[in-house]
């Protein structure tokens, strides 16, 4: 899908976005810059506590209290550019769900247990002053697209649906106002492998049918590898590497990305060659100075300990925050054959 990108049509642009708690002493998102192309599926991978969910919430200016969000987030609507962080309450209310929508971790807890699914759709449409009749027609269409029986699902209470059905109903709910950008934060985390795969297929279909831009956030590299056009790797509250999927999987350049790939189970790598990453990822209050990965990195030098590496570009559209990405490509061997198409990685 990478070739379908119009490279200079970003739908959302983040510049130096930070989220801080405790009066700025702990960073849970540290100067992230990123642009999202219209129509792409961007996968964001990182381990637990690397700031993925914060990145997702930032796009809707919905950081949990008392977090402080700074930097600049621009959203390119069809005819105007919106500065998300400058919006007032009511403008923000209409941006959310109408333009940028979100599917959270844990569909099971995203519905009000004492309300029918139908009421969730209706109240959402009404809150945005939409026509209920047309909106519900769209809701039914979306539910059918997701292989659910609209009548049955709409009449149900959340607990009457299985986990996979709730997840799909939640995706339908997030799309009911026809948003342009859909942010999904671990949408499949609570599901079994088969359901994860079928949801991925459905997402791909939805993306093509409704020309959606998607940001898919997960800790599961193999999962997002099958779906995404581009992949971003997060480590310690910042993006360390970003590239088209094929490029990232076949030519990973950040030592962390390479180590992450080596620690990910896959069929081409013998179990004996799988490598855990030594050490622990840092907590938000004491991120190491310089490159945040330096305490765990086999290539770290004095420069890494003092200076935070800027983004370098090993290839077009490929950026990596490492001084020694060339060395990393040589010295950190991948335990799977890089000449294999990256898509097989899933």
């Amino acid at each position, binding site marked *: 899908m990478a070739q379908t990108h119009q490279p200079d049509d970003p739908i959302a642009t983040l510049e130096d976005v930070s989220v801080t708690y405790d009066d700025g002493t702990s960073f849970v998102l540290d100067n992230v810059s990123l642009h999202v192309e219209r129509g792409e599926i961007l996968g964001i991978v990182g381990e637990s506590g690397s700031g993925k969910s914060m990145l997702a919430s930032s796009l809707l200016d919905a950081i*949990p209290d008392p977090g402080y969000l700074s930097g600049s987030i621009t959203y390119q609507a069809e005819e105007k550019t919106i500065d998300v962080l400058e919006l007032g309450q009511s403008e923000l209310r209409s941006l959310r*769900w109408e333009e940028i929508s*979100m599917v*959270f971790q844990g569909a099971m807890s995203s*519905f009000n247990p*004492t309300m029918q699914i139908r009421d969730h759709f209706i*109240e959402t449409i009404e*809150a945005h002053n939409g026509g209920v009749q047309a909106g519900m027609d769209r809701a039914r269409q979306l539910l059918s697209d997701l292989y659910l029986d609209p009548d049955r699902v709409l009449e149900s209470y959340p*607990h009457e649906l299985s986990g996979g059905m709730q997840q799909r109903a939640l995706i339908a709910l997030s799309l009911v106002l026809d948003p342009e950008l859909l942010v999904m934060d671990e949408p499949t985390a609570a599901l079994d492998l088969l359901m994860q795969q079928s949801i991925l297929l459905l997402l791909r279909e939805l993306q093509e049918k409704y020309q959606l831009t998607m940001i898919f956030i997960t800790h599961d590299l193999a999962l997002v590898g099958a779906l995404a056009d581009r992949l971003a790797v997060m480590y310690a509250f910042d993006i360390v590497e970003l590239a088209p999927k094929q490029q990232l999987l076949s030519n990973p350049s950040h030592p962390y990305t390479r180590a992450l790939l080596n620690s990910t189970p896959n069929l081409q790598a013998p179990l004996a060659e799988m490598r855990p990453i030594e050490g622990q990822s840092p907590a938000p209050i004491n991120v190491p100075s310089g490159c945040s990965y330096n305490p765990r990195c086999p290539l770290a030098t004095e420069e890494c300990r003092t200076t935070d590496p800027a983004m370098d570009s090993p290839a077009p559209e490929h950026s990596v925050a490492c001084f020694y990405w060339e060395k990393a490509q040589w010295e950190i061997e991948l335990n799977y054959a890089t000449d294999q198409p990256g898509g097989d990685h899933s």
Partner: protein
Amino acid sequence: MINYYFQRSARAVLTIWVVITATFGMIRLLPGGPLAQLEAKLLRQGVPAGQVDAMLQTYQNVHPDKPIEVQYIDYVVALIQGDLGTSISRNKPVMTIIADALPWTIFVMVTATFLIFAIAIVWGALMAYREGGAFDLLSSGASIVLSSVPFYVLGIALIIVFGYQLELLPTGYRSTSGIDPESGLLVFILDALDHAYLPILSMVLAGVGLQALAMRGNAIQVLGADYVRVARLRGLSDRRVAVRYVARNAILPMYTGFLTLIGFNLGGSVILEEVFNYNGIGYYMFLGLDNRDYPLMMGIFLIITTALVISVYIADLTYGLIDPRITTGESNETY
């Protein structure tokens, strides 16, 4: 589903039957009870023995000469017909006394319980919305202080302040003597309310704190739930989130507690009505205790138990109607 209703009904009936049977046994087991005392007294006064026996039998439905199972059946049949025996001290059928007293107790206790919950829900929700703030801290402190003061101590304090010092409200009794429905319905109702303010107030003040803290806890939990966050992001108004999301889900767990508290409060009326000289069933219960008037005590005891069983029964049957998650009721029995 049907099976569940049937089970619940059967269990309620069974509980009441056990209480009735226990009452029957207790009357016969109580040593040196009022009958023996009365018998001795009457005999000393020179009443012929046969007449004494006949009198004793009319009180209490006890016929010691009959076989026990016949006595039991007579007793149960009499109960079903509404015959709870005759009060020894008041010399009236127990049923008559209860019929006169029960509406007053129900009025006071049901009103008090309703007020407790209405206030607790609003107060607790406000505390939850302002969790950690000054209002929350002060309110939580006040709740704990209020719930640690027994309602009868509060009652006495209220009588002293409002009854004797300010002379605003009557110090006792359920109505002014001479005023009854015939002297004008409105006059009667206002007079009854005048007498009910202080008992209700003492129940509410002493009971509201605990329930408010419970509501606070529930509401804080719901406020932290994912579905509330998602609802806000979906652009729902704060008002709708507060009513349909927070309030509804936080109140649900309190519903059963509400109904059972009505039942418990009916039983708790004994002390309250004694403090306020309020002629409800609790007052007569105390009178019965004081005079060793077993038929009166037992009759009221049965009524209170039945009221509690019925309130639990209603809670069980209706919970499924207000919480869609409970359709079989298996996971949410009250007792």
